[in-house]
């Protein structure tokens, strides 16, 4: 705890002044780009990995970057009131963001647990909030994992019932380089993208091209950030050799001028 307090002192001396200036600027002109759902893992530093500035992204972090499906959400019995749909409403309706990003990562403890519970259902502890949270919201990812294990190098479908335009196909780890937990972690990211589309209040935004959902995955050991390309049906490592093609796909799908963002980079 001492370290955290000393950290605040260091922040006071270095970063604070600049940050207060930035806060003033965005107060008059807030322009958030995205809401990112990512994991609470201590190795995840989402704003550092994307070098994002103050005001760029709303960040929601929970155990396993899970977003409850609408069928698990609501006010009648058997369903839940959780923060994730509220966060989507805040960011989309009030914050005006156009992009939702789900970002998973390698060696995710929640995914490890999800898989363990799948292999040994008797281990499920009804008194454990973690077991409940992960099983309630992760079972569809397990279903997709089983499909992947049976389909080998063929793609598997991710269907959205509420917004069919948001459905896509995915080739998960076609060369079997990843541990099964990491396969599950990548599949889980894609499944959360579908869960997001299950919320009725977002349907109009999605169908009219005012909102886009993206999947990212961070390999913490290599420092590599992957973006899911619906064109390629795969997670693609974001680097010099792939960025142009990734940008083209984004421009085509999300209709934003690529020149805008290059200008921003020059300014920075």
């Amino acid at each position: 705890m001492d370290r955290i307090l000393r950290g605040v002192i260091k922040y006071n001396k270095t970063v604070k002044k600049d940050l207060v200036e930035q806060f003033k600027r965005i107060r008059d002109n807030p322009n958030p780009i995205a809401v990112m759902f990512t994991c609470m893992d201590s190795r995840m530093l989402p704003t550092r990995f994307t070098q994002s500035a103050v005001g760029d992204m709303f960040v929601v972090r929970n155990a396993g970057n899970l977003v409850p499906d609408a069928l698990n959400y609501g006010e009648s019995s058997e369903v839940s009131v959780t923060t994730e749909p509220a966060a989507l409403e805040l960011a989309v309706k009030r914050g005006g963001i156009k992009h939702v990003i789900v970002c998973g990562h390698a060696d995710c403890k929640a995914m490890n647990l999800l898989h363990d519970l799948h292999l040994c259902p008797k281990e499920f502890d009804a008194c454990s909030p973690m077991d409940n949270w992960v099983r309630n919201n992760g079972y569809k990812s397990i279903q997709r994992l089983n499909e992947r294990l049976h389909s080998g190098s063929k793609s598997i479908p991710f269907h959205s019932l509420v917004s069919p335009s948001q459905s896509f196909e995915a080739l998960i780890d076609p060369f079997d380089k990843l541990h099964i937990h990491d396969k599950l972690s990548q599949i889980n990211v894609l499944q959360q993208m579908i869960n997001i589309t299950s919320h009725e209040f977002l349907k109009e935004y999605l169908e009219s091209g005012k909102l886009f959902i993206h999947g990212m995955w961070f390999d913490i050991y290599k420092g590599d950030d992957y973006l899911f390309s619906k064109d390629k049906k795969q997670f693609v490592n974001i680097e010099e050799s792939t960025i142009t093609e990734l940008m083209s796909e984004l421009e085509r799908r999300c209709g934003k001028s690529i020149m805008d963002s290059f200008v921003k980079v020059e300014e920075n």
Partner: protein
Amino acid sequence: MGLQRILNGVIRFRKTVRADLVKQFEKVRDDPHPTALFITCMDSRILPARFTQSQVGDMFVLRNSGNIVPHAQNYGSAGYEVSITTEPAALELAVKRGKIKHVIVCGHSDCKAINTLYGLHKCPKAFDPESPMDHWLRRHGYSSLRKLELRLSNPDEKPLEYISNNALFSFSALIDPENALSVEDKLSQINTLQQLENISSHGFLKEFLERKEINLHAMWFDIYTGDMQMFSKRSRRFVTIDEDSVDRLTNEINQ
């Protein structure tokens, strides 16, 4: 703008910070020792790692709308008013499996969730049953609103009482005695402290709390001044963390 900006950020990350970060990852990967669970708001102006200058592996970070942790009575898998939410799961992961010693709840000024909560309080008719935000806030913001009313109607400036089953975790608080804050920011501070009461209500944490294996702290970030404040149980108020106060605050925590 758009996602292109984020992709460009990743390229910048690769050119600058990444090599250093991978080295840090190597150190923590097999033997991570996070010290804390930091619970804060999803607001785009909040940057937990920057405000505390923390590194890879230092803190678990939980972020939601309004930095709220449901009270145990609003949590569960059976019945109408209870839900399986992530916050108790996050506490379990960090405390039982991550073995952290400190849980910090950090609120902030100009919080949109708090502003909405206050709006619902002033105009209950505005409650929208189709709004997940309204449901989330109404269900979990009730105690904070009650305490706000106590604070506002309090001519003697008596402190607010936060009660826990375990007396070790009960405390009193004087909220904004100088009346420098807006009513919403008062509510934000009250709400931040309320989460400490909520956290200590969860049965699965009981042993850890009783044996003082975890400590609960409240912080509050003032977006206008950039000041990070910490709640001091001794002083019964939020204190700005600076050169003058840091030793005193550190002493208090270590006792």
